């Protein structure tokens, strides 16, 4: 019986024309001496030949009309050309793109930016020392703008930046990007944010008495300045040492910039 079990597979496979020549000969030899397997073979063959007769089961009434209705519905919804945004591929792609945007956003918000990566920001550190990280830690507090968070530099970053800048006078360029990158500081939309631990000497002249100031909620002060005023401040910062600062700049639109003054600890 155990021996016959193997031949069951062969008998079945022969009905489907799936035997090799060798298997065929082996099966023939077995069938010649095993009446039980011969009987089985004839029964399985009978079932096999009965299949074509079982084939036809009538489709339910209205089947073809149903097909045509589905076709017409499809044709009227989009005659030949499926609207771009209805195509499942495009929908999937749109979903993927949304996820990607979200991921990039989360990544940018959550991970301190390296100076080298930044296309739309320029980070600038006049006095790269341990004060940089202390200064930036203060900025992480709630109430300080998104931009401040985006402009944060890690100690490692500031050291890198410092190493690169130590030999040459650091040059700052406010690059414009194609996207309108705007930041919010203390509820105001600005094009660029300069954070620094203290105002350099001579900044009073640049800021002037009319400069609007806002409390940033953490004991610091936020000045709303023009693009030109900020550039003036940056020029002053280049001449001074011991002030930790960083700049985050987006595209210049109305030229309003924020100068966030964080108090020295």
């Amino acid at each position: 019986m155990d021996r016959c079990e193997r031949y069951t597979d062969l008998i079945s496979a022969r009905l489907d024309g799936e035997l090799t020549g060798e298997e065929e000969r082996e099966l023939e030899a077995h069938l010649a001496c095993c009446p039980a397997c011969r009987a089985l073979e004839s029964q399985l063959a009978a079932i096999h030949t009965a299949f074509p007769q079982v084939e036809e089961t009538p489709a339910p009434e209205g089947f073809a009309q149903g097909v045509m209705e589905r076709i017409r519905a499809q044709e009227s919804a989009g005659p030949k050309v499926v609207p771009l945004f209805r195509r499942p591929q495009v929908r999937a792609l749109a979903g993927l793109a949304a996820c990607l945007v979200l991921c990039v956003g989360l990544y940018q918000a959550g991970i301190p930016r390296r100076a080298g990566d930044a296309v739309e920001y320029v980070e600038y550190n006049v006095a790269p020392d341990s004060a940089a990280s202390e200064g930036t830690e203060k900025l992480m507090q709630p109430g300080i703008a998104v931009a401040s968070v985006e402009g944060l530099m890690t100690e490692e970053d500031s050291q890198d930046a410092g190493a690169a800048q130590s030999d040459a006078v650091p040059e700052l360029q406010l690059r414009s990007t194609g996207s309108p990158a705007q930041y919010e500081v203390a509820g105001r939309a600005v094009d660029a944010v300069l954070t620094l631990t203290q105002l350099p000497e001579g900044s009073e002249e640049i800021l002037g008495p009319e400069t609007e100031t806002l409390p940033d909620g953490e004991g610091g002060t936020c000045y709303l300045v023009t693009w030109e005023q900020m550039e003036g401040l940056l020029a002053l910062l280049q001449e001074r040492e011991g002030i930790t600062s960083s700049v985050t700049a987006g595209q210049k639109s109305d030229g309003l910039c924020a100068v966030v003054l964080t108090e020295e600890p």
Partner: protein
Amino acid sequence: MTERELVDRARAGDQDAFEQLVLNNQNRVYTLALRMVNDREEAADLAQEAFLKAWQGLPSFQGDSSFSTWVYRLASNVCIDYLRKQKRRREVEPVLSLDDEESGWTEPADWDQDPQRQLERAERSRAVARGLEALPDNHRQVLALRELSGLSYQEIGQALELDIGTVKSRIARARLALRKILLEDGNFFGGPPSNPSNEH
């Protein structure tokens, strides 16, 4: 009108011609789907989907095979996709439905031979249909793909993600199981079993 002419017209956008193609093939396609999924409503839906795919694919249909072969293959694929999704969703338990009295299995169309023999054939055909329905899903599906779709072992293996050895033995097991049901049914082999081969 020949199938070829109907296909040409349908390809040119003639929906009536396509409807005729549907009518000519609907029973075969529906039967295949029914054997594969064992659910009348689901089978009708899948069979319609196969025809919908055929309509959409007509522009690229080369005519290397006949339309009926092509649409049959499309239906096989639609059903296989469905079964794969089902398989992922859950381990399907065998569905037993033996309510054949009202299901209206068709009589063979060629009524030209000896009526007595035709009656016997019809009865045997019904017995096989009942037997198929009573088979567990994995057995019924391989038999449907083999006996109805005419897929090779290799193609079945690809479709169901099985190796050829498994396909081979599963088809053999399915046939043995069907044989057992038919022996008990008594209408296929002509009376209750009295055969020593039953030990298999």
